[in-house]
């Protein structure tokens, strides 16, 4: 690749480009306060967080993985990545959407889990169960007047499930936020 190509990567994008949603995978030291650093960066610099998931992933290396779904123009998303990399206990930051593009894929695999408590009596119970079946949702608790469904999928599937269940009678929703990895055999 000639040097002149190198410079054109992400630097010619104008601010008129539309807002994109990207998922960032951030590997950090599993120390107290690291999450606060990451979140403080987002609030302090005015970046968006649409979803945030954190958990210790590689216990033996004392690492945690933070998955952040954020939106912004490409130039801002690049800034977020570089700003995150400045945080000392942050080991690496991968923009999974950019990585997917580099791998010739559409987008990363993204999954979310929701627990949805539905109030349903009489005729509504059949509707609720049918809907759950169509969405591959598991029933994890039930009485004669309610169900709790566990549903997994990408965020839009969960949105749709919730919006269809709502007329039947939703009492409570809990969602985990997005977990994401790229396709293929290579790690981040």
């Amino acid at each position, binding site marked *: 690749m000639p*040097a002149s190509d*190198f410079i054109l990567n992400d630097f010619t994008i104008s601010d008129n480009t539309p807002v994109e949603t990207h998922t960032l995978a951030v590997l950090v030291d599993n120390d107290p306060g690291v999450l606060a650093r990451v979140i403080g960066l987002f609030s302090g610099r005015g970046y968006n967080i649409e979803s945030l998931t954190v958990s210790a992933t590689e216990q033996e290396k004392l690492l945690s993985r933070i998955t952040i779904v954020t939106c912004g123009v490409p*130039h801002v998303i690049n800034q977020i990545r570089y700003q995150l990399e400045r945080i*000392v206990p942050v080991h690496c930051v991968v923009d999974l959407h950019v990585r997917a593009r580099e791998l010739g894929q559409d987008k990363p695999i993204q999954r979310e889990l929701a627990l949805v408590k539905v109030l349903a009596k009489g005729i509504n119970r059949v509707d609720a169960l049918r809907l759950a079946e169509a969405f591959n949702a598991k029933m994890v608790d039930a009485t004669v007047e309610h169900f709790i469904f566990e549903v997994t999928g990408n965020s839009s599937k969960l949105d749709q499930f919730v919006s269809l269940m709502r007329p039947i009678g939703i009492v409570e929703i809990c969602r985990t936020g997005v977990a994401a990895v790229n396709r293929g055999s290579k790690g981040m």
Partner: protein
Amino acid sequence: MKYDHTAAQPVYGREMSGAAIVVQALIDQGVKHIFGYPGGAVLPIFDEIYQQEKLQHILVRHEQAAGHAAEGYARATGKVGVLLVTSGPGATNAVTPLQDALIDSVPILCISGQVPTTLIGSDAFQEADTVGITRPCTKHNWLVKNVNDLSRIIHEAFHVARTGRPGPVLIDIPKDIQLASGFYVEPKFVSMGYRPQLVGETRAIDYAVDLLCAAKKPVIYSGGGVINSGAHAVRLLRELVHIGDFPITSTLMGLGAYPANGKNWLGMLGMHGTYEANMTMHDCDIMLAVGARFDDRITGCLDAFSPDAKIIHIDIDPSSINKNVRVNVPIVGDVAYVLEAMMYRLRGISSMQEPSARESWWQQINKWRERKSLAYHQKTNVIMPQYAIERLYTLTKKYNPYLTTEVGQHQMWTAQFFGFDEPCHWMTSGGLGTMGYGFPAAIGVQIARPDDLVICVAGDASIQMNIQELSTAIQHRARVKVFIMNNQYMGMVRQWQQLLYGNRLSHSYVEAMPDFVKLAEAYGAIGIQCTKPGELDDCIREMVACDKPVLFDCRVVNLENCFPMIPSGRAHNEMLLADEVTDDVMENAIDANDRSLV
């Protein structure tokens, strides 16, 4: 992996108290002086300091001053400046210098005491969530929870502070950890995982050199990163300017990297930069930005910033690149490494433009220079502030003095009129604009350079933000010369009120100004007052000859303003020049829409 966590369990080293570990670690890191103020939560460390002689403690009068003194010390020596403060108010008072050091990339280490581990979270006496408060204003910070981690954390903290883009770090040490017994680990046994990229990408460097060689209207825009990178980077920059005959301008933080008496020097750029520097930036075809971050005071209106330029940007911090201004050739790396590689390639090729190809560019630049944008009207009966700085420069340059400033008009006048020929001789609060910075910073410089002339150019308002440090200067025989440009106003605030707020001078006049001469005498320092241009030279000589701290009350004309100036929201080629400024221009310089731009 950034940290080797296995190092957390030291199996070697001597056993000692946490407080002794702190002192030993500082000594092993080569620290000679620390600035601080005692209090309940750091008494064990102060007790250790009392019992040794390698580490000298400089007692300040306010923790903010300890931070700024550490900054001045760091910028004069290139070493990490250290301050020691107590918990709660001690730590919160240190927040301003931490943020100041963060934005100006100054390596300092703040050690703060904390209430005992068992009391954390109980709203104990002098408790504050120091790590939480300082998280956004440090490069990194640590709360020590195990005395066996203490020495490793201190060594890591020094490494993080001075490596890559330098910055402030803080270690919060609960009192029980200071008293507990643990093992001390020497620096050489601590593995440092934090390793920023130093070497620039070869293709980008090659391309940058090609662009520079082919440039018809080049300019180099250098910043504080060159100075932070060290003496070698400064030498390389000067060589680059010389062999390419490039015009060079610099930010406020970068003054001194290229000598002000050099023939390619255009003066400072930006809001109060020279006409020739800003016009050259605006019209250039190739811009080489070295260790500078395209601050809003530099760029003016972003849409009209150097419209025809291809921009090469060397910076050690990837997040500085493309942050405010989109650049064409980004080079992430340490300035010295990157310039070395550029020079290597430049020396190898001979396709540099013939000097004649840039003749018209230099002719144009010389025309801009002839505009003499720093000209001012001399007066016979009152001292013009610009004249005061010029005389100060002329009469002290043979001593190669260190200059610090507070923040305001006097700061800009010093940057414009004091010629800096060497790096690390100029300390000012650039990014944060901290009034109260200059005097304690000067004390820090004087502690590091006891035999040199250290001058703090101050304003009558700024100096009063940390005036109590006169006492520190007397106690530690820091014979700092404070040159107060006294115009009875917060001059820069007033200038903006004149430009933007219909000359309604809301609270920018300083009533009840103290008698600075008597004030100096009250502290045991020397006070000098000068009101007439004819007496100025003698008074400055008297100040320089004095071997005590001096407060120099230089009464300057009250209503002078700082020009040239790019009004906010305007481009580099829309400067206000002093001789064009009428009352009408002042009123209409900035329209209502741009007012919010600060």
